[in-house]
């Protein structure tokens, strides 16, 4: 799985209220969640983001609530991958559970600026900054996790596995 996309850059502690404010939790319609994604910290994001782009952020991305709407809103906005220095515990589980690839890689975050382009190889865990040519190594996903992401998340993956067992 290769991802090539422009970068949206954010700082530390991007919380779940910033990703999708609770006042919009009355819906799970993905286009509606996407239209309010990041609204309180970056009004330009929802309108400007294009499919396949990448969020690059600092430490503790996704801290706060257990709302799965947060990774859902990001995924629905078209973001293909989030690279951060670290992720908050519940967000980490939720993101993979809904099939949003996330990578922890502090050196890549420090060396990446907004609007640069990154090329991410999920199987190898490599992040290449096409503007500088430099390559950074994150921990690659094991095969089952790539399969889970490709299936669209834990629930469809489990359903598929149960069906395989017959």
């Amino acid at each position, binding site marked *: 799985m290769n991802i090539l996309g422009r970068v949206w850059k954010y700082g530390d*502690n991007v*919380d779940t*209220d*910033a990703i999708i*404010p*609770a*006042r919009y*939790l*009355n*819906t*799970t319609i993905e286009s509606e969640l996407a239209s309010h994604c990041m*609204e*309180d*910290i970056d009004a330009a994001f929802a309108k400007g983001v294009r499919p396949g782009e990448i969020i690059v952020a600092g*430490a*503790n991305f996704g*801290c*706060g*609530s*257990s*709302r*799965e709407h947060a990774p859902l809103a990001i995924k629905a906005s078209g973001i293909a991958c989030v690279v951060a220095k*670290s992720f*908050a*515990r*519940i967000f980490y*589980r*939720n993101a993979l*559970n*809904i099939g949003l690839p996330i990578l922890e890689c502090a050196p890549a975050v420090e060396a990446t600026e907004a609007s640069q382009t990154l090329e991410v190889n999920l199987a190898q865990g490599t992040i290449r900054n096409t503007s500088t040519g430099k390559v950074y190594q994150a921990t690659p996903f094991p095969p089952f996790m790539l399969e889970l992401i490709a299936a669209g*998340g*834990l*629930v*469809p993956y*489990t*359903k598929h596995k149960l069906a395989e067992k017959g």
Partner: protein
Amino acid sequence: MDTSMHHPSAGQTLSELILSHAAGQQVHAGDLVIVPVDRCMTHDSLTPEIIDALEKNLGVNRIYDPERVAVVMDHVAPAASVQTANAQVRTRRWVAQQGIRHFYDVGAGVCHQVLIEERLVLPGQVAIGSDSHATSYGAIGAFGTGMGTGDLALILASGRTWLRVPETIRVQVVGRFRKNVSPKDISLYLCGMLGLDGATYQAVEFHGVDWLSLDGREVLAGMSTEIGAKVGIVPPSGEIASRYNVPEWLRVQPGAHYVRTIEVDLNTLGSQVAVPPEVDHIAPASELGDVKVDQVFVGTCTNGRLEDLHILAELLKGHKLAAGVRLLVIPASHRILQAAAEDGTLSILLAAGATLGTPGCGPCIGRHMGVIGADEVCLSTANRNFRGRMGDPNARIYLASPEVAAATALRGSISDPANL
């Protein structure tokens, strides 16, 4: 920290003890385990999505064990719009159809408070909630943590979940509270010291608080999620040991391995305030300067309990709110509301000028009953002050103890209760 150096025969932390008991084998920090979930809690905010995940995505029409499930209507309760009302209708139908007996409808209170009051979580159990403040169950010595929709759906379908056994930070509390300082000040102090991700993926164990009430323990356990912790556990001693049958195996072990120990000295701890927009932007209440407030909110799973209402009433008795300040009080549960009505607490609060709301989450998550507008300032006893959390993104939320809330309601600006 290299946990492989830790010899398995050495003592275990409370998290290791509980997960070993649940897994049926001795486990240590870093191990991955699959464990039965003793109690699974979902609330009105996420239950409709969990039903979708179960029925539409997984094709599961009967949950694994309705007896182990509790459903609480607290996040937007009573419903604030037709949309939420319809979502709640669907949740009630599903609860009835699944035969879920532990169902708590509008007005029962905040999920975590209700589960503890109803003794639906017990010392030594594994309890997973669709809410980040499910760490509150650590107040009675349970392993409580929050997860999202997908994980909850799979727990409802299978009765089990996977967990990584966390490393543990030991918080050693020494001394006793000074006047008008309380457990929230310990929590906020730790947020300031460790930061929002200071305990990510880890457990926090609170020692030296055997004398602390159940109400106070719930503050410490619940707020642990604000430093990123998976669980916050208070050893089930004192009031907990006298209220519950604590299992023999759930005892603090002398040789347990902690990644670090932090001492909190109550002899010097003063009132703390979290300054927007982060819970770890901590300042002593005495050094904040003049911050005028529009609304004071006392409530939530963090500080809406009887003990908190008693503190508020004691400090407000015979006084009136400062001009231009609204005081919104939302008891954390129906039982608390009833007790506060019976013992005269509510009369004192109402005489001072307080407004009461239905037990539940109130405006904590910015969805109803007291959301704040642009440029308004709220001093809240809740747990998060992120931008946009309680309403307009340009509103500002300061977090503090019920004592600071009382002092602030009387003065009209954020005040140190030490001077009351």
